[in-house]
């Protein structure tokens, strides 16, 4: 970039200690900021990945009968289900309560929504850039399954893929059959978080 390349000449014509310090300070701060931002940016997916390992261990304890097995000692949530998406990847452990904090670790079951396999809508939300990146690959007719802590497995078939504006739409939680709704942000490749579009995958229980 020509502009930045001309700067050294301009700055060099009268060196002074104070200016150099200022420059170094600005530079140091900028590097620190950049490194911090990058680290934070990479830490989020790393944390999401790491949490799944801890959650898988908690899941094993859950299936062994510890109904509220905590993935780490200070956690205020517990695994409620395991979600298997098509494609042969590891099942994803789902936490109770779709709070921002829980979503950082795993996809989470929305409070007040139905338990997997029961009548009603089971809403599971996940981050588009971590666990639920894989939703982009889902197609109508695909099969997904939810395993409950008691070992029962419910199979669902994807029936709808919708993009909705969350500023205007709401999720209905009542149904007279067992429905799973997977929610993530849309578009998948967007950089800024907090957009109002949501990608909604609806799947109905298959018997």
């Amino acid at each position, binding site marked *: *970039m020509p502009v930045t390349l001309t700067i050294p000449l301009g700055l060099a014509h009268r060196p002074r200690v104070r200016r150099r310090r200022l420059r170094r300070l600005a530079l140091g701060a900028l590097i620190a900021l950049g490194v911090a931002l*990058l680290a934070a*940016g990479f830490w989020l997916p790393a944390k999401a990945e790491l949490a799944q390992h801890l959650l898988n261990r908690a899941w094993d304890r859950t299936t062994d009968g510890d109904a509220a097995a905590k993935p780490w000692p200070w956690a205020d949530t517990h695994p409620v289900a395991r979600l298997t998406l098509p494609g042969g990847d590891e099942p994803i452990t789902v936490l109770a309560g779709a709070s*921002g904090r829980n979503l950082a670790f795993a996809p989470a079951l929305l409070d007040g929504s139905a338990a997997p396999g029961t009548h009603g809508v089971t809403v599971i939300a996940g981050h588009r850039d971590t666990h639920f990146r894989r939703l982009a690959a889902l197609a109508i007719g695909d099969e997904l399954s939810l395993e409950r802590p008691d070992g029962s497995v419910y199979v669902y078939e994807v029936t709808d893929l919708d993009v909705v504006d969350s500023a205007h739409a709401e999720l209905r939680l009542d149904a007279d059959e067992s429905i799973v709704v997977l929610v993530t942000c849309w*578009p998948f490749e967007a950089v800024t978080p907090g957009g109002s579009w949501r990608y909604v995958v609806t799947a109905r229980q298959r018997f």
Partner: protein
Amino acid sequence: MRKRKFEWRKALPPSLYEELEVWMSVLLALVGGLLLYATLTAQAARADAFPSDIGAPTLLFQDASGSYATAAPLETDLRMSVAGIVARVRVAQRFRNSGSMYLEAVYVLPLPDDAAVDRLTMKIGERVVEGEIHERAAAERIYGEARAAGQRASLVRQTSANLFTTAVANIAPGEDIDITIEYLQTARYDAGEFSIRVPMTFTPRYGAPDTPEGSSAVTSAVLPESLATLFELPNSARSGPRNEAYVHAVLAPGMPLEWIGSRTHALTSVQQQGPAWSTARGATKPVNDAIANGAFVHPKPADLYVLDTVAPRVPMDRDLVISWRPRVGPAPAITALTETVGETTYALLMILPPAEAHTSSAQPREQIFVIDSSGSMAGESIVQAKAALKNALGRLRGGDLFNIVDFDSTTSTLYAAPRAFTPTAHAQALMFIDRLVADGGTEIGAAIDVALSQPTTRDYLRQVIFLTDGAVSSETAVFTAIEQRLGDARLFTIGIGSAPNSYFMRKAAQFGRGTYTHIGSVEGVGEKMTDLFAKLERVALSDVVVDWPEAVELYPHEIPDVYAGEPLVLAASYPAVPDRPLLATAFGRAAGLPWKQTVGGVPSELPGISTLWARRKIEYLIDSRVAGVDETLIRKLVIETALEHHLVSPYTSLVAVDKTPARSAEAALERRNLSNNMPAGAQWQAAFPKTATPGPLLRWLGAIALMVAGSLLVATHLPTTRAGMPEVEQRRERLPGSVS
């Protein structure tokens, strides 16, 4: 001559210029980065372009063929005629097909829990087809055959006590079909006020539904597989358009009124003299016309009240309640209405024991409050419930024992055992209430177990007060649990929310030998709780029996306890004897002392009384399921009664078929489930959670910052490298001078 170039670095003080350059470069890098980012996201967005007019407040849904569809809104016209305590309600709904396919519409129609549904008509243009009553399986077969043959057909089925399903087949493109359902109900009298509740929508139920014989198992045996799914309750997981209703009511109360109106809807009321509307089946015209047709004789022209909603249409998101208060202090001690059909006279009696019968109770009380904090209570309901519970605590007296049970998916209690009510306990209870959050399921059975199995204290009268919206599906199981575990306790229900399951409230209180109270709004809490505590604090009439001069078939068989302010409502049938006055005596006990009241006189003749009697008989038969009566016997007796009185029941359905085919065999039929509105104030829907991490953004910003830093690094390093080459530096130092 050399032209002097303008130079910023000379125009400004050197230090300022230097700083400016640093920040300019940062700014430029940021702008460059942002531009790059904006381009990239714009591309990403284009890649997933969404082909519709999103932004409208509906969820669009896509079918397999890729087209988008929304359910058509439903127009409902609700007309009510009330004579005394009997109301005939006509619900006309217009099913409109604005699409290009033949349509089958399915709608869940909530009706009052004591509704006697006895008429179905289907109107296509000017043609009206009357519905016929059949055993449910037969009705479903008739409907299924008509549907397959391309004929317009309609079926009304009772899916649970107060939920009915209307299905309409073969609505042609661009066609309207009006489906009218009529039912009878009785007004409720409580604390000096009559009221009629008309449900407009329902709170979705939690848990496995009751599966009485006659549901899916039988259905699938009778119907082709593709049809069987029709009789599942429609999936209402989608948000639909708003359903609206017209409301028009004509009321002939038969007594001077102090007040008439509605606390749920804004209504206008006009008083006039004139003939009342008939409560006879199918009579929607004024009485005079009906008399001309020889159909109906009303006692006498009376004061009429004509009620209409202020807004021409009201959203169907809350129950409509119309109330009226008679002018003369305590209401008439008895209302007797009869109808003679053939050899049998049917009578409906309302006996109001005088207030003196209910003396203040001296017995110490123990009150166990059970509060429902399940997900369906979220929103205004839990606010109402908390307000009601706090209000109730404020009414406890020192020396009373109390405890609070909170339930959703799990059950928790304030204390392990009931404790004496003290200021400290009051404070602890208030803290307990404040901490309640509405989420989870409605595991009502466990809560009833916990409440009724609390350790008892001698000589204390246990009163269990249940605050819930009754959003449970397995009603029978709950009633059985109450009946088996009740012992000497009494269970009272308080209905919460704008559309509580009033069937559950009424029946749970019936099996709990208590009474039920509806709280429609937070503002109504104080008044309703005063009414309820007036009942809790007074002696109820118990062991009531009614003596008739002849053999009667009486419903309810076992007369419940009568609480202060409430009447005793009985339906009886006996052999018809012309011009015989009605005479009956009620005996009972109040606080151990005998009580007696004789009623008699010439009753008013009113059509529909036989239907109401039959409805009560069916309810009694269904109730006997809780006591373990054989299902086949119940079924046989219910079918017998329902067919005789043209009533929809769990085992009988109304079906109407238009013989003229509407659809050719080739044209396809599309099914559409029309969704009900959510109850007002309910949060049985959720906002979308935030589902993106700032990860990508952070990484981008980090990269940009490092890029800027990198370029600045070059800037700061260049002078230092030149410091190792002094002659160059010096030459450069001199350069400016030479230029000038």
